[in-house]
């Protein structure tokens, strides 16, 4: 055999398996403009839908008149709540156990809320007709400030549930209160604070932002009246769940609903939920009998679909004088907008915020989260992070810096003193998690050495002296962040979406020639799944990755899965992929043994072949075995070579990392320039280092955007300020810093290949690194905490507040 006589290294290289910087399969079509995105789809007779939206944040609807809109040539239908009501689709359930109006009938609760859906023969006419819908309003006082939501005189927003004292997550104390979520030991934590030698307390706000993938949310719905079948092509990060929920809501049997997520132009959490546009496109297709396309524009996307964060966190740390932490107490006021459409596993109203003890060995901790309604768009999605993990990481990483500053201890040193030690893993946190693995001290040491941390602090000290002497107007900030993520939801005992356990799946078929088709329940939005899943299969089965085709996103062909978000694809579907491969390999071993005429215990797998133990010249390649699977299986064995795996992870994974940001700030302009950004990530086994680095670059850029400028801001009337890319900060290549990446490898002990997931780490760890750098620059002048975003104007204002402006 030629293939076997090659060197082992050559055979491994040919596979392009785990660890290989394999070039992406997806890029071949994307670089030629041959991607297949929703808006590229053109069906015969297709109509276009567009919304009429509310200009007010809070108003009663007196009358909706669609006469003029309907009269416009080319308009086929105009839907309002009145049309949806008989179908019981004027309201829809949210992932968080609340309901959301699909089209507002009696009241509008946020600016941009959907009121009427106009369907026309082309998108220009639909837009014209949307403007012709006439609505008479009675303005109501808007509630914009979440700190006022539960005031006795606050306007009641949700009249539909005003008298309900019990919500999906327990008692409600006020008509604008959604839930209180509590975790940890209140009594023991209070006691830790009573006896604490030192404590700090700070309100740390994480402003409302938006994931804004470059492709907005969109769908094409096509209902076949004859067959009673509905097909929806859409921007769905979780297509299977959309189908199940669609079946429950519409009454169309699940097998007659076909959900197809084609190429997706970025998701970042924006495309997990179900939005009124999808529902209206489906209803419009049923009503008109024609395919209906809905494509939101950018202003609609920023205004109405899926904000993120808006967490107002009061963090307290108790510690000894030596800087050893003894307790953590956090209260969060969570602004959920007009409907609780938070995209979390159903039993977790504040996501996994209880990862807020971070990388530190807190003996006790206690967290409460209060969710409240305001007259703002619904959402609360996990924008490039696992559920509420970036909020938690920001909270603890800022609070640790504040503690360090109070004690006069270096920020890196305070972290090192409190890290969970390597020998403590698996580590049970005070807030209930079991951290699977970690080696924080090694990672931190590597990071500090890589940037020359001590020299940077010395330089900073000298600069501070110069600043005090009036010789410079530039400040230097060093931001240290050490984050621990919790990703890969999740064990079905903990996590479900509307009752569906959060496992994931892979179905792999090896064809006679050794070519493989693999399908997963996840859905890439740019992460490169077609490339990386194939690498896992290559390593597990010994078939070159180039011979593997990976498919996702079609609910008819892909096995049931919960989709891609919360960095869950690698912890769940990649694990399922390895598990399915191992089932295939076990059968292949039986076939190989049969071909080699030995007992199956006497053969072993080696890179790409089975060989008889102790007789390396007696070999059958996996390719040969694949052929034999279709014509020469041993007696009693079924032909064929395929397997499916539904993988319910035993635990989540806990990627971690050390990020260091060096920043120079011009006090007179407020402009902060990132001089250096070093990111060390430990995501366990590295499947494709090129893709990991790309994920880190992208996540850091989003973190930079959030920390240094992004904000979905409202005025006191609930008007959204600047809902376009003119105002909402997306950095260009000019502002974006250069990224340095590095890594350590601490494999997950429970994952079949030891991988942990990485896509969201840079966002989670990046935001505190930037914010800590800004705060660090001003700390020696007496600043304790400067709120994000750190755009030049706010930085200038912070300097002014410290008396630094002349």
């Amino acid at each position, binding site marked *: 055999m030629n293939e076997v006589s090659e060197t082992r290294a050559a055979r491994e290289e040919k596979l392009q398996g785990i660890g290989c910087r394999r*070039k*992406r399969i*997806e*890029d*071949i*079509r*994307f*670089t*030629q*403009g*041959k*991607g297949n*995105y929703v*808006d*590229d789809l*053109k069906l015969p007779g297709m109509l276009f839908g567009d919304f009429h939206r509310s200009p007010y944040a809070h108003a009663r609807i007196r009358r909706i008149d669609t006469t003029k809109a309907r009269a416009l040539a080319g308009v086929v239908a105009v839907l309002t709540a009145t049309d949806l009501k008989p179908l019981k689709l004027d309201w829809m359930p949210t992932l968080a156990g609340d309901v959301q109006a699909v089209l507002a009938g009696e009241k509008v609760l946020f600016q941009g809320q959907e009121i009427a859906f106009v369907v026309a023969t082309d*998108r*220009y006419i639909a837009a014209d007709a949307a403007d012709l819908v006439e609505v008479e309003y009675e303005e109501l006082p808007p509630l914009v400030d979440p700190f006022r939501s539960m005031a006795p005189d606050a306007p009641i927003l949700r009249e539909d549930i005003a008298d309900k004292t019990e919500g999906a997550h327990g008692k409600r104390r006020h008509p604008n209160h959604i839930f209180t979520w509590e975790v940890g030991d209140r009594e023991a934590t209070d006691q830790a604070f009573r006896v604490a030698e030192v404590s700090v307390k700070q309100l740390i706000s994480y402003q409302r932002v938006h994931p*804004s*993938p*470059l*492709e*907005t949310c969109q769908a094409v719905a096509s209902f076949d009246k004859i067959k009673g079948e509905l097909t929806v092509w859409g921007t769905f990060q979780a297509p299977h769940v959309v189908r199940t929920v669609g079946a429950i809501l519409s009454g169309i049997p699940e097998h007659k609903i076909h959900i197809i997520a084609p*190429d*997706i*132009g*970025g998701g*970042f959490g924006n495309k997990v939920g179900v939005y009124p546009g999808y529902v209206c496109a489906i209803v419009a297709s049923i009503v008109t009998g024609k395919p209906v396309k809905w*494509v939101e*524009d*950018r*202003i609609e996307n920023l205004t109405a679909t899926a904000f993120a964060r808006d967490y107002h966190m009061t963090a307290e740390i108790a510690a000894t004088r030596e800087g050893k932490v003894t307790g953590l107490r956090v209260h969060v006021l969570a602004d959920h907008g007009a409907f609780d459409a938070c995209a979390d596993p159903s039993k977790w109203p504040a996501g996994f915020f209880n990862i807020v003890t971070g990388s530190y060995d807190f003996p006790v901790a206690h967290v409460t989260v209060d969710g409240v309604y305001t007259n703002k768009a619904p959402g609360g999605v996990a924008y490039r992070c696992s559920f509420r993990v970036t909020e938690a990481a920001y909270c603890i990483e800022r609070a640790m810096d504040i503690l360090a500053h109070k004690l006069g201890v270096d920020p890196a040193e305070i972290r090192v003193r409190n890290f969970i030690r390597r020998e403590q893993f698996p580590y049970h946190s005070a807030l209930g998690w079991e951290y699977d693995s970690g080696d924080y001290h090694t990672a931190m040491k590597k990071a500090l050495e890589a940037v020359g941390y001590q020299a940077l602090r010395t330089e900073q000290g000298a600069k501070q002296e110069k600043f005090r002497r009036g010789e410079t107007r530039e400040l230097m900030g060093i931001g240290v962040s050490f984050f621990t993520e919790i990703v890969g939801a999740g064990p079905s005992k903990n996590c479900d979406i509307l009752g569906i356990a959060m496992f994931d799946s892979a179905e792999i078929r090896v064809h006679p020639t050794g070519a493989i088709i693999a399908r997963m329940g996840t859905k890439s*939005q*740019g*992460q*490169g799944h077609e490339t990386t899943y194939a690498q896992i299969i290559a390593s597990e089965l010994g078939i070159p990755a180039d011979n593997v085709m990976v498919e996702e996103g079609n609910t008819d062909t892909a096995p049931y899965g919960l989709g891609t978000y919360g960095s869950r694809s690698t912890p769940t579907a990649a694990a399922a992929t390895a598990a399915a491969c191992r089932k295939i390999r076990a059968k292949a071993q039986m076939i190989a043994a049969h071909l080699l005429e030995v007992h199956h215990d006497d053969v072993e797998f080696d890179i790409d072949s089975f060989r008889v133990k102790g007789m390396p010249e007696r070999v059958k390649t996996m390719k040969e075995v694949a052929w034999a699977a279709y014509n020469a299986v041993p007696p009693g064995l079924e032909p064929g070579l395929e397997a499916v795996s539904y993988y319910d992870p035993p635990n989540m994974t806990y990627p971690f990392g050390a990020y260091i940001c060096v920043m120079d700030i011009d006090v007179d302009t407020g402009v902060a320039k990132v001089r250096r950004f070093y990111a060390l990530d430990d995501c366990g086994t590295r499947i494709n280092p*090129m*893709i990991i*680095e*790309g*994920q880190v*670059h*992208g*996540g*850091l*850029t*989003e973190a930079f955007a959030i920390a240094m400028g992004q904000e979905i801001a409202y005025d006191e009337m609930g008007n959204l300020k600047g809902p*376009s*890319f*003119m105002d909402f900060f*997306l950095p*260009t*290549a*000019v502002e*974006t810093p*250069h*990224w340095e990446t590095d890594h350590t490898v601490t494999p997950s002990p429970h994952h079949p290949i030891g991988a942990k997931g990485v896509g969201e780490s840079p966002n989670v760890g990046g935001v505190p690194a930037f914010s800590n750098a800004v705060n660090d620059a001003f700390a020696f002048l007496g600043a304790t905490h400067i709120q994000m975003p750190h755009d030049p104007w706010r930085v200038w204002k912070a300097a002014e507040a410290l008396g630094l402006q002349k």
Partner: protein
Amino acid sequence: MAKTAISLTVNGEKVEALVEPRTLLIHFLREQLSLTGAHIGCETSHCGACTVDMDGQSVKSCTVFAVQADGADLRTIEGLAAPDGTLHALQNAFREWHGLQCGFCTPGMIMRAWRLLQENPHPSEAEIRFGIAGNLCRCTGYQNIVHAISAAAATIAGASKEAAE
């Protein structure tokens, strides 16, 4: 709405069409000519996903009317590879350097880079960053895009040097 006749060249081919005066060039390309490579990301000319080349300039086709392209010579991502299917150096370099992830900004980004390299065949990193500042990418953080453009510039320079020799 009354339609206007336009005549233009798209990727080297003569095109004659009737368009409404208000039809945007991006919609004309995507919906009438089925050239779906260029995308719409913002409709306000910030993101550059719709970038195509018109008469030797990069334009954001979401803010150009189709009627303004009457008589123009247009090139889109679909017209970048050689007629025999050989990919352009930029297309290869974007893949080689992992200069794309979701692929949505890519056609616009590559077309902008294509024009940039004609304006400045040997750009520095800073010049590349400035040169693509009208094109937003949400996935890559630009670093690998900059590498890719730089690498493509070197490849093109190498090829033309070879041709000259």
